[in-house]
């Protein structure tokens, strides 16, 4: 078991943003977290990565508590927030080198590791460019490159294809599937087709709670409905009134 969540809640003031009683994610799974805007996807991702601390409950990654043993847990995680966290005035290479230093890559392996992620994400051709000159698709791939530095066991991607054109979406999805062959990947999205084409397991969040958790193929047949879209709409039918 790589990720283990027990009785997790996260409040913003009095508003409960996340309320997950139990969630376990195994090694090598590609999990899609679906939900409407404000369903708690980003908050759940931020708690999982240690950026936000839980109001109550326990989150462990690879057996390390994300609050009590934060650096050890974070060393196992690669994270791409919804807006790629890029220093726009840095070159792609310098940015990835900086990320590698912060992610405990040994000095002797720094350049080789940066070369590896440039290769995996297919961004070698822009390594000397300043980030602000890149297109959104390239920026997204630079963001994914920093997330996979030092080969983390768990990769968390928050809406990785948001705002990309169809070709860029195709490339990023192929990259995610490739990453998921060796690691655990959790990605959040509100694009239903993303789930069909990328993930093995679907979790649907509604008002911070998990309302569906099943393999992606079964979500499509859930409650005798034909498509994931219909399952999703059925779970939110009261919001449509």
């Amino acid at each position: 078991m790589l990720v283990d969540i027990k009785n997790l809640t996260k409040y913003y003031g009095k508003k409960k943003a996340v309320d997950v009683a139990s969630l376990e994610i195994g090694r090598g799974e590609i999990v899609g977290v679906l939900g409407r805007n404000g369903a708690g996807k980003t908050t759940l991702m931020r708690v999982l990565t240690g950026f936000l601390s839980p109001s109550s409950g326990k989150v462990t990654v690879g057996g390390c508590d994300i609050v009590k043993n934060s650096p050890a847990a974070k060393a196992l995680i690669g994270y791409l927030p919804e807006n790629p966290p890029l220093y726009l005035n840095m070159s792609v290479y310098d940015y990835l080198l900086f990320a590698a230093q912060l992610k405990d890559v040994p000095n002797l392996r720094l350049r080789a590791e940066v070369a590896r992620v440039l290769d995996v994400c297919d961004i070698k051709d822009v390594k000397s460019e300043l980030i602000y000159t890149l297109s959104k698709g390239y920026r997204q791939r630079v963001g994914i490159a920093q997330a996979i530095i030092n080969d983390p066991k768990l990769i968390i991607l928050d809406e990785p294809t948001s705002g990309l054109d169809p070709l860029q979406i195709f490339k990023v999805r192929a990259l995610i599937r490739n990453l998921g062959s060796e690691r655990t990947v959790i990605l959040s999205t509100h694009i239903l087709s993303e789930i069909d084409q990328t993930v093995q397991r679907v979790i649907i969040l509604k008002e911070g709670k998990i309302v569906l958790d099943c393999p992606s193929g079964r979500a499509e047949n859930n409650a005798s409905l034909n498509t994931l879209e219909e399952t999703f709409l059925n779970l939110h039918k009261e919001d449509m009134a």
Partner: protein
Amino acid sequence: MRKIFAIAVKELKTYFMSPSAYIILIICVAIFNFFFFVIIDENREATLRDVFLAMHFIFMTVIPIITMKVFSEEKASGTLEFLLTTPTTPSTIVLGKYLGSGIFLSIIIAVSSVYLFILEVFGSPDILSSLCGYLGVLLQGCAAVAIGVFISSLTKSQAISGILTYVVLFFIYFAEILKKYVPEYLSVILTQLSSSNRAEGFNTGVISLSDLVYYLSIIIFSLVLSRLSLERRN
């Protein structure tokens, strides 16, 4: 330690990748030159004592510009999320950021060391006393940078960060002036808080333990508050 240096180097590169670093350097050197020549011409003494006083005052206006983006920019652009989700502790991030800004300040101070050579060529200055004055300028600058870094960690607005740092630095510098308007017990606190008197000692070549403790306390206190501010962002 490696991560602290990595963050400090990145911070310095960020300063020098924008024109603002060069503008700050040029303006500081121009103002220092002006005061140096006017003061030397007026006093006809081979001492930098009054130049140091001017430097203390100028740094109060320059340091908020140096520190206002330290954390505010990271918060506004979302890169703080990147820093805090790497296996890097908030203390390391604060120390790295502080070191980067401190080195930038030291570069400005180092440029002014040319005055010491000019005095040495044309007069016989008390070198030890001048070095002591530089130590005072450096300590006062480092304390102000620490305050600026802390204030920057409180907001994502660079403007608010800069203005608040101005207000706090001016209050600390002129705190003693206010003491006649407040009750006795507060006037003691204001006297101890004021930084203008502390600088005086260093400028005349006197290093007192209480002044060292004063500056180091401000630096440590501000950096600890910065760390807490990062940890309690949620």
